[in-house]
């Protein structure tokens, strides 16, 4: 009978069913897709693209939300909505760059430490990770950024430097338990090389948690990036970074609340979106109860 054993392959409908069991994950996916769309097409869809960078129009400054400037204007007369749309670009770039710098080395170190459990490699890698984890992340990033010239690039480097141990820890905990699984031993007695065992036997079994953590982390990286910009160690004005906008607009609180509140609320929205999406990704990879 054909189909007694279903053919292997990716079943989109089943995956969507697992993912959307919790409808909030679908909301999260929607928010993230929307933010990504806006970020990519900001120059075409924002009402005043030229307001993103250096631009001055004092006659229209300090306008509260109205039909011309939906989210109001800031102290230089720039449209807040347009700047937020461009701000998404910096936030997402921060997340993408940091995660792609952090995940590969973090994962590889974790795999190596887990595979050579009880050896010198484990000792060196995990203690180094512990040292990085012992310093509160924001404090470390702040100190690095304050030594270097404040810029978006340096903020990314600083966040990357303190983020890898989380992946090392996560992957280490999975790989060191998989290390003793029978299928790893079976590979060993079939004469598989350590390289094969680490990357073809152990790594594919870690992918679910890694992807889940990446999704959740995207939100946190954006938050840290915004925090650095907020204290003036990340993106510099007039860059339309959400954190910079909050800190600049903060001077005008509480009367001109829209200048800082709207960027702050979008930071919340983006982080919430990534967190909800992360929950969905976790459900997607969760083992099914049979």
């Amino acid at each position: 009978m054909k189909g007694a054993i279903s053919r292997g392959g990716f079943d989109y409908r089943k995956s969507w069913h697992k993912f959307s069991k919790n409808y909030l994950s679908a909301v999260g996916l929607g928010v993230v897709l929307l933010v990504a769309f806006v970020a990519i097409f900001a120059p075409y869809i924002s009402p005043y693209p030229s307001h993103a960078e250096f631009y001055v129009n004092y006659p229209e400054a300090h306008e509260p939300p109205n039909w011309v400037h939906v989210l109001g204007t800031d102290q230089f007369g720039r449209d807040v909505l347009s700047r937020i749309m461009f701000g998404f670009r910096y936030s997402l770039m921060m997340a993408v760059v940091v995660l792609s710098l952090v995940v590969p080395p973090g994962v590889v170190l974790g795999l190596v430490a887990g595979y050579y459990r009880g050896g010198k490699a484990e000792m060196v890698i995990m203690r180094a990770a512990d040292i990085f984890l012992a310093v509160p992340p924001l404090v470390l990033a702040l100190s690095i950024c304050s030594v270097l010239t404040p810029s978006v690039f340096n903020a990314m480097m600083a966040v990357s430097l303190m983020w890898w141990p989380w992946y090392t820890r996560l992957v280490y905990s999975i790989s060191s338990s998989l290390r003793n699984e029978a299928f790893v031993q079976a590979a060993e007695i079939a004469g598989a090389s350590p390289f094969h065992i680490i990357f073809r036997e152990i790594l594919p079994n870690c992918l679910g948690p890694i992807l889940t953590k990446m999704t959740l982390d995207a939100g946190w990286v954006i938050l840290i990036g915004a925090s650095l910009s907020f204290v003036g160690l990340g993106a510099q004005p007039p860059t339309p970074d959400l954190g910079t906008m909050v800190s600049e607009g903060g001077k005008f609180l509480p009367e001109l609340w829209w200048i800082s509140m709207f960027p702050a609320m979008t930071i919340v929205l983006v982080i919430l979106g990534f967190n909800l999406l992360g929950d969905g990704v976790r459900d997607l990879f969760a083992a099914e109860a049979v």
Partner: protein
Amino acid sequence: MTGQLLEVNDLHISYKVYEGLLRVLNGVSISVGEKEKVGIIGESGCGKTTTMKAIMRILAANAMVAGGTIAYKGHDILRLGRQELMRLHRTSMSMIFQDPTAALNPVFKIGDQLQDIVRYSEWRSSVPNKQEVRTRAVELLKSAALPEPERILDSYPFQLSGGMRQRVCIAMSLASAKDLLIADEPGTSLDVTIEDQIMRLLKQIVEERGLSVILISHSIGAVKGFVTKLYVMYAGMMVEEAPTEELFSNPLHPYTQNLLKAVPKLTGGGVPEGIAGRIPSYLTITDACRFGSRCRFAKEHCHINAPPAFDVGNGHKVACFLYGGS
């Protein structure tokens, strides 16, 4: 019998744990000849699997080889370099695990896993092309009596039944076992009818291919019709060694006698009494006979010294003071 393929001599292995040192194996010796079928029986936790893992050199990181040698085809396994060991694993010896579900990587199709093994089973001589590898994988599955091998290559482990998974594991081990196959309780995690099928299949394959086999089991019935020589292990010692027929007709060690009596019989007589007591803790073990605390015949010196193996003729050896010594 030509030369011995595998010779384990006086192997001592301990595990370092928080509580101290678990002295598990205490002088285990096994010899397996070319094309010889050897069985090892003993209750759970008596060191059968540890011995096999030592032969394969896949012991856990906290295991310590305190003494003894393992000679395989003229190689000193315990001192073999990484490359040489890998070569032996790929081309000469293999092992079938107790639980086929755990022994297959859950995220890959059977075909991917099996073909990897096929590809590397020729040690760097010639890399076979894709089609050859697939043909060979299909042949292996067929020789393990699996129907529709093409479909199985495209399945994930969880899509197969337990018996099919164990057949897949057998097929995988056949790719690299050209001399020695270790079967570590290959039927234990399956139900009895499937276990019987698997054992028959294994026997047929082994005889066809002329492999040497070490079959581990705690079910006496399963090994009886399979192997020609039997070792009985108890708490990390080899207590008795004899040709199968000889062991069943003339068990000498008190433990073996009890073990044979403990098998329930269909012909009545109720549930047998079993053996009182349990395996001593490996943590507090002494130099005395390890079966001493459960042995009806134990004398004073049994609680002081461990008996060496006494040869009683007919290839029958027994480690008990009843048959020699002081």
